[in-house]
């Protein structure tokens, strides 16, 4: 489980190291020279600049952003998130990228929601992002208890999201990267319970911390940086007026591959102890995809030795999967009154998050 307090202990150290590297590099201005034409660009090589950004957004984990079959019983505290990111110049053998998101809820409490870290060496890029948020499972509005639902264990839970990417930039589109990605997401899920119905049994079991794992091909586009560098972007339409750039863009992070989901609960024992039934259940596998998008309006201002960018819009994440039973059907059956069958519902392995954001970035 994500432990913000443990990882947060390393953050000040990482930030201080990166800041020192950035300051030492920003004291001198490097100029990119085209040896073939023997001409000099009016702008500094973006890779020689350090990059910093601050983003204000609606927190990734809020009740209104949790979409699925459990929306009526799952609760998170409403919150806003403050995200800071720093990257050292990329024209060195080793470049470091660190960031953190601080989540402030309605009660005024602040906690670290996510940590982002990346290292690029020898052209290979490594990035890890984590986020988490506590939540609670309550009966539906106006109800004093759950109706035909059994919550396994505690009603309080910790939802978490971790993404790891390894890859490299495209040669002709530096703001785009591709490689291999891995996502691990933990959140409540409903397991449909099939029984003969001769006795009153619940219809679903709720596992507050059900786990999904996705491994596959990853591709990523950052249009704000592309706009700040006059680079090609993805779905990016920029206009120029002197040093000012402005226009719309669709920044995206896509991962597609194999998905495996599982419950960390002993479901067979739980159903046996609670209802005396022999449970048939298998952790599902199939295909999955993750799409993180940012539909944004971008303003960028280029100077010879620095760049400033501002973007605002809507960002969100869709994490979905199709398990083999959903695609090919199932031969499972409940053959007598002593048996039960558990299956993850098709809508219970999804994560949908969206909300407004504002991002300010600068390179010096």
């Amino acid at each position, binding site marked *: 489980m994500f432990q913000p307090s443990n990882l947060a202990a390393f953050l000040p150290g990482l930030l201080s190291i990166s800041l020192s590297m950035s300051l030492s590099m920003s004291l001198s201005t490097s100029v990119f020279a085209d040896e073939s034409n023997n001409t000099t660009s009016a702008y500094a090589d973006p890779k020689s600049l350090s990059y910093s950004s601050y983003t204000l957004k609606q927190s990734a984990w809020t009740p209104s952003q949790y979409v699925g079959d459990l929306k009526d019983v799952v609760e998170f505290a409403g919150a806003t998130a403050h995200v800071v990111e720093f990257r050292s110049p990329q024209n060195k053998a080793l470049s470091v990228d660190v960031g953190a998101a601080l989540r402030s809820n309605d009660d005024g409490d602040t906690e670290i929601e996510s940590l982002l870290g990346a290292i690029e060496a020898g052209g290979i890029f490594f990035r890890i992002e984590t986020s988490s948020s506590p939540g609670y499972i309550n009966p539906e509005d106006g109800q004093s208890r759950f109706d035909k639902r*059994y919550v396994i264990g505690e009603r309080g839970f910790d939802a978490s999201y971790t993404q790891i990417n390894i890859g490299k930039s495209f040669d002709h589109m530096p703001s785009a990267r591709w490689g291999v990605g891995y996502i691990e997401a933990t959140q409540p899920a409903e397991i449909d319970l099939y029984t003969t119905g*001769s006795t009153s049994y619940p219809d679903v079991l709720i596992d507050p911390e059900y786990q999904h794992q996705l491994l596959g091909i990853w591709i990523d586009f950052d249009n704000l940086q592309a706009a700040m560098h006059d680079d090609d972007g993805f779905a990016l339409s920029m206009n120029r007026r002197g040093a000012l750039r402005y226009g719309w863009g669709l920044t995206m992070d896509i991962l597609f591959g194999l998905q495996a989901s599982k419950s960390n609960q002993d479901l067979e024992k739980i159903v046996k*102890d609670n209802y005396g039934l022999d449970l048939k259940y298998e952790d599902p596998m199939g295909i999955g995809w993750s799409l993180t998008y940012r539909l944004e309006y971008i303003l960028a201002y280029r100077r010879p030795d620095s760049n400033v960018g501002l973007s605002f819009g809507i960002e969100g994440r869709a994490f979905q999967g199709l398990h083999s039973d959903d695609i090919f059907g*199932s031969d*499972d059956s*409940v053959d*007598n*009154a002593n048996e039960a069958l558990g299956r993850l519902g098709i809508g219970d392995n999804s994560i949908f998050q969206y909300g407004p954001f504002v991002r300010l970035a600068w390179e010096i």
Partner: protein
Amino acid sequence: MKPFIALSALSLTVLLGGCDNYPDVVDSNSPGPTPDSETNDTFFNADSLDANTVSGTLSNDNVSDYYKTSSSLFNERFNGQMTITLTGTGGNADIELFDSNLNLISWSRTEDSSEEEIIYWYSGAADSHRDVDGQHYILVSTPNGDTSDYTLTFTFN
């Protein structure tokens, strides 16, 4: 054109065949599994609480006893306060109250051997639609494996 139609028909057949995602469930009128009357260490094997008072013993080998309330103790039209009390001698023991869906709704978990008490507002109207009217479960347990002779008392006020 004909091969294309055949391929499309085959693809559609495969797709439709994969759309039957629901398991086959036998329509059975049999009553289901039978609880083990020799033990009350799980929800399923819980002893029926047919009287207002019951006694038992917890130990390191028997850390939990489960009880379920029978409908004779409940009036589905009753709305009022019910009190569950655990008294006894020996070590630490706790009580927890569960609804008919086996979800925890209240508890008393003092850390010493003091008396435990749950006061719960029971609404018969909320349970009147259920197949087993008024079904609640009470768990008596010892978190430390202490030996304790207890008396569980259940009353409506």
